[in-house]
């Protein structure tokens, strides 16, 4: 019969020699490994390049001087650095209570109805809105309609709205990790739901919440697009203090952006110096976040 003559050789891999098979397995494995390392290698090249170019200008004077377009040795990032610190303060004050409050509501108090569902879907969608659109929101709402000017406050409020979804999501994870026995114990002893939440849940969930909040904050201070659209500039007015809420403001990412655009390679090196300062700040914040995460995982379970 014709069917018996056609040998089942269609799928060679099924019948390949063990030697070939082992070689093919190794090839695939190495290929996957190499692909995984691409990201790591690019990160390494980026850091080496930034350090190689930027360390030259990095000294105490760099942190305390004003930006300059004339003399590279005099140039600095003081308005950007102080502006970033001010923004951090505003964003922390605004977003931590709001985010943690929203997370507590959704995890502990919200009834299962359509409104809750709407809030949850909405938070998920907000997390996907491009940051530059938040910038337009800030420009239209805070600078335009509320007439705050292109000010520190307008920039801070914009960043608060930007990172709120991140903080809500991580805070909810921290609350979810608290065992139910604590809730039942509190309610069983006759505590009200808020007393249970405040006295029992919150201390347990707090380290995890702080981790999430700091990570959200570190995302906020690295963002350039939203505050650029709101109207951040390279410098602020000479006589204003870094905490003048209604004054023109600057931030490190804006300094980096403007220095990078300079056609003179020396000023691009200054951009690299500013990048080192920014990455240093981010590294510090991530270190603090990891410290709290480790404390959280050691907590009562």
């Amino acid at each position, binding site marked *: 019969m014709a069917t018996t003559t056609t040998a089942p050789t269609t799928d060679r891999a099924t019948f390949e020699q063990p030697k070939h098979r082992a070689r093919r397995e190794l090839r695939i494995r190495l*290929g996957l490994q190499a692909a995984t390392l*691409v990201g790591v290698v690019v990160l390494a090249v*980026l850091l080496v390049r930034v350090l190689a170019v930027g360390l030259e200008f990095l000294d105490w004077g760099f942190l305390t001087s004003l930006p300059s377009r004339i003399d590279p040795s005099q140039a600095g990032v003081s308005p950007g650095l102080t502006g970033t610190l001010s923004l951090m303060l505003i964003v922390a004050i605004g977003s931590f209570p709001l985010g943690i409050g929203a997370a507590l509501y959704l995890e502990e108090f919200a*009834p299962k109805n359509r409104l809750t569902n709407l809030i949850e879907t909405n938070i998920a969608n907000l997390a996907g809105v491009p940051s530059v659109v938040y910038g337009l929101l800030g420009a*239209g709402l805070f600078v335009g*309609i509320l007439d705050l000017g292109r000010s520190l406050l307008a920039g801070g409020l914009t960043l608060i709205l930007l990172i709120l979804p991140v903080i809500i999501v991580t805070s909810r994870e921290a609350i979810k990790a608290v065992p139910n026995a604590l809730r039942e114990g509190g309610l069983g002893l006759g505590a009200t739901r808020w007393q249970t939440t405040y006295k029992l849940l919150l201390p347990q969930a707090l380290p995890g919440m702080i981790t999430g909040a700091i990570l959200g904050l570190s995302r906020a201070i690295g963002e350039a697009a939203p505050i650029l659209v709101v109207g951040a500039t390279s410098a602020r007015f000479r006589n204003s203090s870094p905490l003048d809420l209604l004054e023109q403001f600057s931030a490190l990412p804006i300094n980096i952006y403007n220095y990078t*655009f300079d056609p003179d390679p020396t000023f691009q090196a200054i951009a690299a110096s500013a990048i080192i300062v920014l990455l240093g700040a981010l590294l510090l914040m991530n270190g603090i976040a990891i410290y709290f995460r480790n404390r959280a995982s050691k907590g009562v379970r």
Partner: protein
Amino acid sequence: MAALTQRAGEDNPLAPRSKRLGEKVILAVLFACGAVSVVTTVAIVLVLANETIPFFRDVSWQRFVFDTEWQPFGSDLDVVRLGIWPLITGTMHVTVIGLLVAVPIGLAAATYLSEYATPKVRGTLKPTLELLAGIPTVVLGFFALTTVTPFFRNVLGFEGIDFFNSFSGGLVVGVMLIPTVASVSEDAMTAVPNALREAGYGLGASKSRVALRVVFPAALSGIVAAIILAMSRAVGETMIVALAVGSRPTITLNPFVQNQTMTGYIAQSVGGEAARGSFQYEALFAVGSTLFLMTLALNLIAAAVVRRYRQEY
């Protein structure tokens, strides 16, 4: 916790006689915190509409959709060219190049981390990739403009590459997207139950066959969602393209010439001619609305893919 509220109703003899006022106030405050997110969304839509509607009063939508040039500079509304297409094709350049980089590399990394890597290797590689995800995009933009473009122009001697071009921008956007693609699709692959892998091994399949022909298809919905999310992030990415791609939107297939994306236009034009009330200012929001609708559509599709095709194991 919702069940507890219902049990504390009228017919429950153990329910407190008088509800505490403080509890109600606190509940209201917490609800207000949750409602901020809804207010934010409404505000985004209203603010975008608030400037986009006047824009389309001055400029017909046909002009916006069918004109093939974007040159919004000048004060004469009849002379300026306000066709969105060059900005959209510029965005597509960066998105396509970015995905060509991020999808193969990200999926390979996800396969390696989920199927091959020992816990120890995984424990080192994953945080390193997260570190890459934490690099501010303005820093990546610096990298694209001052390292990647000069590398192709000077080291490899590609004379035809402009100083600003969508190729370098797209490559670096792709690098930025690797962690997104890798971590979302790795989650999907780790969620595939071991019984499927064991069935594959039981039939005599090799490790790579199990990874590529069993686990990969089983995790496909999550993988597709990861790719769409990456696409949405590429469309919305601003600082890399504002620094590296340039400021001259052109309809072209050549990725080595200067171009401009929607996000790049918004970031570069806010400081300049776009004073409040001018049609340039309104044009920013018209472009912003287009961008917002595109990313929203992509995010909704990604969510729908996950909901529709998710396999519950």
